[in-house]
């Protein structure tokens, strides 16, 4: 995209270098687009008006195919596909669905991840309740990953389908090792982080060192609540995790997560949902802390929103809020509603449940509201 040498006509070059944000909301899909200056943004949409769009993703391998996970309040879940960057859409002919007789029903598809670069057309989807699905035809048809969905320990790992977050238990953070298509991680709320080294055939929990202080045993093997897990770009042996109980980092082949939330101010805490990593620097990441005290208000602590950035893998954190409202801004940012672009000087973006999109084009130094008055924002991704 923007880091590739310009090709084509000047107009095509400009369009190819533009930055697009996919804004998935409770009421449909919008896009924000800017030229590389990232100063002026144009809002377009809605598409799928009235549908709950939990996630929308562009295929990072082709930059052509887009998938959107949608449902409405009274119809079943489905996936829409576009092969022309959102100009036209077709519905999947076989959306993710559990097997007949399993007794399980997909409520919604929550997470979409393009497969490994060596496997064009492959996508993975995580659902609520926790299920893992795979497509080999760019999202037209989906099959369950039996190694997970039918694993004899799945129910022990995840709890019942009625357990989990208020909006339903979820399988999310499907991560593919860029060096090996068979090496995958998933996160589950609840359940924890799990790893497979055989393309999903077998799974093992990977939660040592992560607290689960809402459980009788605060350091169990599984049952944790990772909110968002990311691979560090440029160092696939490094994972970061925003958890229900803090912020963590894991350096493989180690299996012991390190608490990196300890460096956050005590008045702010280390609770939140999203976590994003710099596209060119494995040591840089951002989180959006929210109030995890008492009954878990899950809004900006004290009504004073701020992003926190670390330049050293989570050892130290810098508060970033220039341009944001100083007080009385009670923002909630969901786990998929924060993203970064691929510029060397990263743009960072997030969407709030109150329908505002905020962006920074200087790695969080200054912030600007890019759009307001949208429906509740579920996900923001860079296209």
């Amino acid at each position, binding site marked *: 995209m923007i880091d590739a040498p310009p090709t084509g006509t000047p107009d095509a070059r400009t369009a190819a270098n533009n930055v697009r944000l996919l804004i998935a909301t409770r009421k449909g899909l919008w896009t924000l687009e800017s030229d590389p200056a990232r100063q002026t943004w144009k809002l377009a949409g809605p598409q799928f008006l009235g549908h709950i769009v939990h996630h929308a993703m562009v295929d990072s391998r082709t930059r052509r195919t887009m998938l959107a996970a949608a449902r409405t309040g009274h119809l079943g879940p489905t996936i829409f596909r576009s092969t022309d960057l959102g100009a036209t859409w*077709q*519905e999947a002919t076989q959306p993710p669905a559990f097997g007949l007789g*399993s007794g399980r029903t*997909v409520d919604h598809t929550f997470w979409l991840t393009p497969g490994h670069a060596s496997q064009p057309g492959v996508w993975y989807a995580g659902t609520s309740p926790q299920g893992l699905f795979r497509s080999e035809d760019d999202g037209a048809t989906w099959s369950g990953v039996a190694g997970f969905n039918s694993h004899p320990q799945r129910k022990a790992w995840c709890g019942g389908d009625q357990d989990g977050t208020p909006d339903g238990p979820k399988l999310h953070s499907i991560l593919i090792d860029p060096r090996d298509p068979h090496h995958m991680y998933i996160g589950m709320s609840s359940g924890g982080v799990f790893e497979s080294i055989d393309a999903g055939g077998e799974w093992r929990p990977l939660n040592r060192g992560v607290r689960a202080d809402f459980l009788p045993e605060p350091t169990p093997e599984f049952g944790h609540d990772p909110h968002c897990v990311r691979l560090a770009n440029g160092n696939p042996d490094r994972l970061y995790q925003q958890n229900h109980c803090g912020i963590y980092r894991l350096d493989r082949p180690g299996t012991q997560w390190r608490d990196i939330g300890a460096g956050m101010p005590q008045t702010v805490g280390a609770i939140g949902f999203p976590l994003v990593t710099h596209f060119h620097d494995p040591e840089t990441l951002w989180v959006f802390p929210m109030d995890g005290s008492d009954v878990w208000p899950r809004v900006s602590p004290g009504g004073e929103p701020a992003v926190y950035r670390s330049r050293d893998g989570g050892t130290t954190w810098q508060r970033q809020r220039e341009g944001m409202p100083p007080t009385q801004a009670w923002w909630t940012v969901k786990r998929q509603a924060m993203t970064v672009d691929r510029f060397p000087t990263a743009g960072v973006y997030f969407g709030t449940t109150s329908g505002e999109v905020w962006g920074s084009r200087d790695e969080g130094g200054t912030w600007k509201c890019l759009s307001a008055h949208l429906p509740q924002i579920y996900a923001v991704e860079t296209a």
Partner: protein
Amino acid sequence: MPVRPSSSNLRSGNGVIEGGVASRAADQHAAVDVHTVRIDIPGPLRSYTRQATRVTVALPARNLTLGRALTALEHAHPGIRFRIIDEQNRLRPHIQIFVNAAVERNLEAQLSPGVQIMIVAALSGG
């Protein structure tokens, strides 16, 4: 807006679609007694029926059940059934089906000739 897979149905006008796979199959087996079922389609599902408000499907009279009628609907309008019935063959929450004005949630329920089905997607919440 979503583009639905194309259908071979013939539009008869006034937002009503007739025919479908089941009726074509019936043509090939003329000896089989065939009944027609009219199905009223709610607004949220009309993107599957090219905005038709009513669809007529024909299917063998023997063992004429609600489930078979909805399968015939799926053959004529691919994708519509999964929005009504989940992967465990259960009606989705907030979907209601009326058979001749009576609520029916049993897919094995027998249908009488000339029956009229209405699918309702109950709007709720904000």
